[in-house]
């Protein structure tokens, strides 16, 4: 029995045990400071579902040796283009959501391809370069959002009649199309079945991909490029492919996020999109060169759990609104923790 527990801990890793216990203790404290447990659990699950696909999008690039995709904003932008185009066309409901995905994919593929070619030129420094690719693409799009000829009155500035707004509501289009699908509602408790199923499908596709010949070659290229080359794998092509997949999944991920969140956020909003996803994946036990579906699920759940619970519990204890400050401390603290842990593993 004791041996079994020891093995289980070893397998899960101490960081996850500690954070898991911390999260559990927050759930225990919650009722005493006047927070309903059902609401907190429900919030955690909803946030998990809306973020999980974004976290998932990191996996292909990690596996192929391109490191953590700090340039995720590129995929997010493709997703945003899909979203606003779909609204411009005025398609509502699930169809609108699917059209958004269909439009986003080619944009993501083209951006991902070019981004992949760039990353092949900076081997070893992918993550630093990726960060700045992400930042500059957001800045570039800030101009484009103003200039692109979208006309739908729901999206453009009321006074000038030109340029897209910073925040666009998807209400009346496809708000909650996945969240509400087969959803379960008991009092304050809400379970977003559709979003969970959608994430499950995406994760399954990625998992299957890494079980195929191509996916195995990609894993090998990430694990040891020289070995892969000696076995006849075109490492550069594998890397570009992984970047394309990561970017496409990120584009889909942001759409899933928006249908749950309710708003399309343009301009500087996507700027720091990559960081929480990266933090979640690392927290889940992934390294810079290896990530699994388990890492995605565990990491997203723990990260979003802490992010949901800490501010609400703290707010109620100190009786003032500190939520944003605490959110920043917790989320960035988590990245620092995760990245320093990575260093330790490396040496």
């Amino acid at each position: 029995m004791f041996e079994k527990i020891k093995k289980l801990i070893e397998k899960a890793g101490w960081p996850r045990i500690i954070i898991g216990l911390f999260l559990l203790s927050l759930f225990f404290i919650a009722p005493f400071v006047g927070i309903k447990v059902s609401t907190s659990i429900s919030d955690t699950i909803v946030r998990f579902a809306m973020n999980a696909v974004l976290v998932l999008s990191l996996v292909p690039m990690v596996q192929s040796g391109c490191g953590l995709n700090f340039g995720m904003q590129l995929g997010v932008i493709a997703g945003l283009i899909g979203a606003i185009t779909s609204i411009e066309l005025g398609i509502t409901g699930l169809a609108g959501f699917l059209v958004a995905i269909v439009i986003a994919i080619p944009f993501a593929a083209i951006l991902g391809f070019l981004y992949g070619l760039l990353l092949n030129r900076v081997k070893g420094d992918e993550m630093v370069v990726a960060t700045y690719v992400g930042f500059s693409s957001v800045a570039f799009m800030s101009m484009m959002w103003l200039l692109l000829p979208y006309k739908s009155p729901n999206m453009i500035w009321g006074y000038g009649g030109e340029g897209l707004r910073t925040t666009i509501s998807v209400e009346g289009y496809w708000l909650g199309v996945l969240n509400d699908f087969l959803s379960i509602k008991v009092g304050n408790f809400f379970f977003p079945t559709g979003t969970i199923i959608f994430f499950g499908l995406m994760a399954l596709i990625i998992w299957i991909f890494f079980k195929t010949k191509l996916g195995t070659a990609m894993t090998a290229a990430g694990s040891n490029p020289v070995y892969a080359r000696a076995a006849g794998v075109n490492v550069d092509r594998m890397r570009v492919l992984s970047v394309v997949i990561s970017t496409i999944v990120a584009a889909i991920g942001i759409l899933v996020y928006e249908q749950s969140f309710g708003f399309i956020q343009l301009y500087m909003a996507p700027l720091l999109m990559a960081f929480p996803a990266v933090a979640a994946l690392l927290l889940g036990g992934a390294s810079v060169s290896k990530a699994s579906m388990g890492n995605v699920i565990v990491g997203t759940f723990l990260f979003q759990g802490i992010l949901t619970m800490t501010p609400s519990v703290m707010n109620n204890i100190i009786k003032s609104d500190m939520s944003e400050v605490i959110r920043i401390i917790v989320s960035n603290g988590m990245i620092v923790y995760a990245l320093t842990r990575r260093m330790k593993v490396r040496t």
Partner: protein
Amino acid sequence: MDEKNYLLRMEGINKDFFGNQVLKDVTLRVAKGEIVGLVGENGAGKSTLMNILFGLPVIHQTGGYQGKIYLEDKEVNFASPFEAIEAGIGMVHQEFILIPGFTATENILLNRESTKYNIFVEVFGERLKTLNRQEMHKRAVSAIEKLEVQLNPDMVVSEMPVGHRQFTEIAREMDRKSTKLLVLDEPTAVLTESEAETMLKAARKLANLGLSIIFISHRLSEVLAISDRLIILRDGQVVRELESSRTTPREVASLMVGREIKEGLSKKSKEFEKSEIVLEIKDLWVDMPGEQVNGVDLQVRKGEILGIGGLAGQGKLGIANGIMGLFPAEGEVVYRDEKLPLNNPVRVLGKGIAFVSEDRRGVGLLLDEPIDLNIVFTAMQIQGRFIKKLMGGLIKWRDDKEIARVAREYVDSLQIKCVSEKQNAKELSGGNQQKICLAKAFVLEPDLLFVSEPTRGIDVGAKSVVLETLKRQNREHGTTIVMTSSELEELRSICDRIAIVSEGKIVGILPPTADPADFGLLMLGEQEEVKASV
């Protein structure tokens, strides 16, 4: 010679690295003004001996050494190279330690410059004295003159030919007034013939001035020409001390290599003379750093085990790596009457040629992946095996069950020690990792197999299993094997023919039963000697 006349005495030196004895009771004496040549194969202990003399940290970190070192009859034990230099021992390295952007003068006098007083010294101290360029020039010229070589003291090192860089290094040692003993570690390795000659002359000149020199080189003729005395190391022991004037290259070579031939030498070499040629290499050039191949011609016959031997850095490893497309290669390689595309691993692998790399951890393995994936990966990618086609071939699903089954087979037959075939490759010992690399090649069912350094860094037990396995593969499956190894003994025990590589070229092919001295001579680039005797 009288005991007291020795400048340096290293007596009864013993050294082991974690239980692996690399020096056994080595005694080395150098008289004043004498040039002592130190020869031996790679791994004979030459560098370790010099590292001990210099007090390199690596020696202390691994538990020090036993024995005594006397310099001018005073016992010394240098804790660091600085102390050794202080005591008057100079070393000229194989790789130059010079500042490329500085002139010869500046390099020679680095940190020992002549200086002049200026006002800042009052405030900031000695370190801010002005350089006395004239004085420095004079000192540099005098150091160069001692060597009697042509070297412009004002030339920037980065613009010098390699020979001049070598002279700059030596001149630097000469400027130190205290230098009594100079260690030259392969000083001619990068020099052209005429430069080497000048270099040797300079060394002789220094010896005549009373400086003692320890000369390490793989070029036997040089060592014989320059040294007064030769010390031959083999497997960490001094096998003989010889007067250079009273020996022949043949004697030295045989002492250096000369192990007893073990039984079980393959004697079937004759059969292969008539068998067809599967692989013909014509004028192959490979740009592999440290293992340059400069125009190799070689024929491999069907069903044989061909050995490729030679000293490290001579290019023997480059041949297989070049053919397999891992390093840029040029030339013509014909495999079964078909020209083999170079620089293209996929095509070469596709033709049924497999390769076990000498760089096990770097090229041979996916350290973070399980054993079974390591074994079948190449077969899966190149031959499309271990794949289940789903949805009409749209999805090429990995057949994990079959992969595990085949991996278990190899784990059993090669006696790979592991918990299960799902264990990560990095958790295994070197020998077991090597077996995985072999399994990886065998699973391809190759007709021609290149194996490089299959027993490097693995223990004796694993060694014999690996060699046995190769022999069995050759016998039972008719696989033609080209094995590259630094260990001559190993090559002689399983090969049908052995080609020796020196300076990027094949210098001779011998049967395993040939005289060890001939192998030694070939390795040292003395092929004329061999031809004369055969």
